[in-house]
């Protein structure tokens, strides 16, 4: 059949319409180049040196300027898998004491000079054995390292004193920025006030109290990345102002966390312009019970305190009003070494039958000679969220077993130095926030006090110490899991040295335009921004 002109035109128009139709969603997941990512940061760091600082206020704006030897897989929601970064591959010797890394070639610092193995060595020497006067906050984590060697410009070798199941993870630490060796040789303090890395973004400016700007590194070694033209980190301390920025579409994302009510308000206001990612958070408030003060030197009393707490019901109520949610043991739920809920519920303080649990608690108190109505002081840190609601909840739970607890709030700057560290308390709120979910980091706090002064319950337990060392040196994940379970049981149940409250819960509502960013339990991870892009 021959088509008329009208027919041809009609078919042409229909074809054109079909071609112009919206692309299916799957096709839009291809990264798009361009755009400036804007995000508020609630805190500003005192210096720019990742080896020295501990605040996320450094990581969020400054991580994009640097690379690390390994990194955590940016697509892994558990945030536990080390993958290649500056190191393109590695081998581990049969004795598990030597790790050899092959570096990418052609990696350039932002001044154009090439990064080689001597820069890796210099950076790690600064972390592990800092020169006098140079701060290295996490050097204790690398006590296992015997030496860092550079057999050739593209190979770096770590020799260990003993095998370590966590060593690769420790090299993926987001704090271990790789610095230039020549710069460190001239002035080891240089990086405290200056920026020069190999990262996907180059430093443009930092206006104190205001913002940090970075722009795309056109010579980035990972070809095709980054996707963004740049980023702008705004220092915004007030959480209401941060929410307003996201709600007003002046910022795309805040990388730490928002409260549940902020998430709900943003969803109500912006609908499908907002996406929400949530995760258990590698932060938890703990209860330290001073073993040097009676009656908390008696494990029956400590077990009673934990048995009184109904964590399962508490989770439902408290997650509505503050940033806690999951019931957890010593590892973040959903991560490789976390105890599943049905096993956890066998531990003291995690029983599903709270009446039975509290009956047992009262029985233990009677046996220990603690009278009904016994009074003690619970010291807490003067930070509203989530310290205050958790303390109120704990005190109420202890009241259920006849304990009369006074709540004393101490100003934050003085809390650890003047109260908790010197042991000036009976029972006190403690805190742990990890930068990566790794038992070596998370369990270190609980070894004996003579090994770690941050054990604020002030006990000595060689069984725990031995379990810690064994799990740290184990290369077999299943064996390690068993050892960690045994550690957890002794810590939280048999000896009740410490009490876990509820795991913090991380909520990141962000602009639907932000793609490629994966939430993990750590707010220190996935901030290099090389895989992040902005959809149209």
């Amino acid at each position: 059949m021959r088509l008329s002109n009208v027919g041809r035109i009609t078919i042409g128009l229909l074809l054109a319409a079909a071609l112009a139709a919206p692309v299916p969603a799957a096709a839009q997941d291809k990264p798009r180049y361009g755009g400036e990512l804007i995000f508020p940061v609630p805190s500003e760091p005192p210096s720019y040196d990742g080896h020295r600082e501990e605040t996320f206020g450094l990581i969020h704006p400054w991580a994009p300027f640097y690379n690390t030897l390994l990194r955590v897989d940016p697509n892994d929601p558990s945030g536990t898998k080390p993958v290649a970064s500056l190191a393109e591959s590695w081998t581990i010797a049969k004795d598990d004491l030597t790790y050899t890394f092959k570096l990418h070639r052609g990696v350039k610092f932002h001044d154009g000079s090439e990064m080689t193995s001597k820069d890796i060595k210099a950076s790690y020497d600064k972390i592990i054995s800092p020169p006098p006067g140079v701060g290295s906050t996490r050097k204790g984590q690398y006590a296992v390292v015997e030496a860092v060697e550079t057999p050739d410009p593209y190979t770096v070798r770590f020799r260990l004193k003993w095998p370590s199941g966590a060593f690769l993870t420790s090299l993926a630490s987001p704090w271990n920025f790789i610095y230039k060796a020549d710069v460190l040789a001239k002035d080891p303090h240089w990086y405290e006030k200056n920026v020069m890395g190999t990262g996907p973004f180059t430093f443009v400016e930092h206006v104190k109290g205001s913002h940090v700007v970075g722009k795309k590194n056109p010579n980035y070694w990972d070809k095709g990345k980054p996707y963004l033209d740049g980023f702008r980190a705004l220092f915004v301390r007030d959480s209401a102002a941060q929410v307003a920025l996201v709600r007003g579409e002046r910022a795309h994302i805040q990388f730490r966390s928002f409260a549940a009510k902020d998430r709900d308000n943003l969803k109500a206001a912006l609908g499908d312009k907002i996406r929400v990612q949530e995760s258990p958070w590698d932060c938890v408030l703990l209860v330290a019970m001073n073993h040097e003060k009676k009656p908390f030197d008696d494990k029956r009393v400590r077990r009673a305190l934990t048995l009184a707490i109904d964590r399962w019901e508490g989770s439902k109520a408290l997650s509505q009003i503050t940033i806690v949610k999951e019931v957890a043991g010593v590892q973040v739920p959903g991560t490789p070494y976390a105890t599943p809920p049905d096993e956890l519920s066998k531990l003291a303080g995690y029983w599903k039958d709270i009446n039975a649990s509290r009956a047992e608690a009262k029985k233990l108190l009677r046996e220990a000679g603690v009278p009904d109505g016994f009074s003690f002081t619970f010291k807490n840190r003067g930070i509203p969220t989530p310290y205050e609601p958790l303390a109120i909840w704990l005190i109420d739970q202890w009241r259920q077993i006849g304990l009369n607890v006074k709540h004393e709030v101490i100003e934050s700057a003085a809390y650890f130095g003047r109260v908790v560290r010197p042991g000036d308390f009976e029972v006190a709120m403690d805190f742990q926030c990890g930068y990566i979910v790794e038992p070596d980091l998370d369990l270190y706090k609980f070894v004996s006090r003579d090994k770690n002064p941050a054990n604020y319950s002030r006990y000595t337990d060689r069984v725990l110490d031995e379990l810690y060392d064994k799990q740290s040196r184990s290369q077999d994940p299943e064996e390690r899991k068993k050892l960690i379970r045994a550690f957890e049981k002794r810590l939280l149940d048999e000896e009740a040295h410490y009490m876990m409250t509820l795991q913090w819960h991380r909520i990141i509502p962000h602009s639907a335009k932000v793609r490629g960013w994966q939430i993990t339990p750590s707010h220190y991870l996935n901030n290099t921004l090389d895989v992040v892009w902005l959809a149209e």
Partner: protein
Amino acid sequence: MWKYILKRFLLMIPTLLGVAILAFVLLRMVPGDVVEARYIGAGQGQFVDQTLMAQERVRLGLDQPLWKQFADWMWGLLRGDLGISMWTETPIVAEIRLRFALSLQLAIMATVIATVLAIPLGIIAALKQDTWVDYVVRVFSITGLAMPSFWLGILIILGFLIIFRWLPPMVYTPFWVDPWQNLLQLIWPALAVGYRYSAVATRMTRSAMLEVLREDYIRTARAKGLWLKLILVRHALKNAMLPVVTVIALEFAFLLGGLVVTEQVFNLNGLGLLFVEAVARRDYTLTQALVMLVASAYIIVNFFMDIMYAWLDPRIRYR
């Protein structure tokens, strides 16, 4: 008069010295120091060893005897050297200079708004005492007194977001770089603060005017048939302004470093926030410098106020 001015300048020295001693002593009485705030407060503090902390204290001079720390600071002040911040280890002058322009501009804008609102409203309320005009002005001023400026600021932001789907700029642009962006950011906090500030000044203006309008010389002026405008401007206002000027001047001095919560709400990089953070971090040097800055502001403002009294009221003459 010059003798008086000289005497007042010289009196500033012991006043500032007293402030310096108080600030120095009180800060060190509070538990904790900057090293603890930096390394123990964060959740990874378990890996920080005492050697590092001791080393940091030596580096910051915290191991020195207190008298030496005070003497070093005083000697620096005399040379105009405020020292370095213990938290950031950058010169304090740089830290303050960055934020001073914003705080000063905000203080000036809020003062202008307050004055423009307060004086006319106060005069009208006094003239129309016990009429509906007076009641409206009094309700307006009491509302301003009852409403915290930061809360009004939150309402302003929420109002913009919900009604106009718009947010004021949250990054400071100096006036000389882009006046429009600058004013777009600062007009809102200036209005929030200025309103609260005008409430106090309105009530003071009203009270002062009522008192002056009852004086015999005002009655005489009226009896002579002078215009009301002339009576107000030439005879009443100047005399009524003495307490009003005091209130406005003292509030201005306060605004330089006291708008902590407003600065947080509007995300302003000002001196108030810097002050609170310095105290929370136990940044002794920065806190001391800020205390001296605010104290100097109060002393200078008071001084200019006293000079202005002499201009406003010819009966006041200093010897």
